């Protein structure tokens, strides 16, 4: 990998984290394109690597939220444990698909994410009422 590609990957990784902190949308939707277009991984390997890349970001985010008491652990553990079943299904589907098709499906998924972002911008209200914000400082 060239130095330019490494620098670009570092910058885009930082940007992906920044956008996930800013919008609450996970880094994955930006990790995958970075790994495909800049690092040069195949679609399936990029997706698998994206899951590994998000672990530190998500773990740190969960730890910070835990400190301010926002995490409902019972619900989180149930959703997380059940997700393992879904992961098995999703992984076997992803590995069985042609990579070109998987990339096109991922691109279509990005369009759905963009539509949801636009919808949330239309209906956006502050997640935290302004008078409560001081409590979080």
């Amino acid at each position, binding site marked *: 990998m060239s130095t330019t590609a490494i620098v670009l990957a570092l910058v885009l990784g930082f940007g992906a984290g920044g956008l996930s902190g800013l919008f609450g949308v996970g880094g994955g939707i930006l990790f995958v394109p970075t790994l495909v277009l800049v690092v040069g991984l195949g679609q399936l390997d990029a997706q698998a690597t994206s899951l590994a890349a998000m672990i530190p970001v998500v773990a740190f985010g*969960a730890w910070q939220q835990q400190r301010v008491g926002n995490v409902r652990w019972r*619900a989180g553990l149930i959703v997380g444990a059940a997700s393992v079943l879904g*992961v098995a299904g999703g992984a076997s589907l992803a590995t069985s698909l042609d990579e070109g098709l998987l990339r096109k499906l991922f691109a279509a998924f990005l369009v759905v994410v963009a539509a949801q*972002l636009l919808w949330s911008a239309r209906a956006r209200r502050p997640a935290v009422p302004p008078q409560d914000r001081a409590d979080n400082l």
Partner: protein
Amino acid sequence: MPAKRKLLTLVGIGIASGFLSALFGVGGGILVVPALVLLVRFDAKAATATSLAAIGITAIAGTLSFSLFDHVHWGSAALVGLPALAGSIAGVRLQALVSSRTLTRFFALFVVAVAVLLFLE
């Protein structure tokens, strides 16, 4: 909501998000956060925080299952994941400073542009 129905709803949300996550290499927060708000009546703060805890488990499970077949490139994961950790801290700080509506629209357009690039790749 009756406890049993709530449990089944949470299990359903988990299965769907795990499927999406492993199929596309994303966290699944795009599904878990609105589902917790709309179906289980969590407020936005609790939904976002709880989804992070759940996604942690999902991402670990996905990473392990793909690494069994050597699909995970660990060096590349560190290359984008570690700067992302720094970026996410900056992003949370910026959230309080910028108007989110315009920025969200620009971000949506950017995501569409990325989709077009990938489609042409």
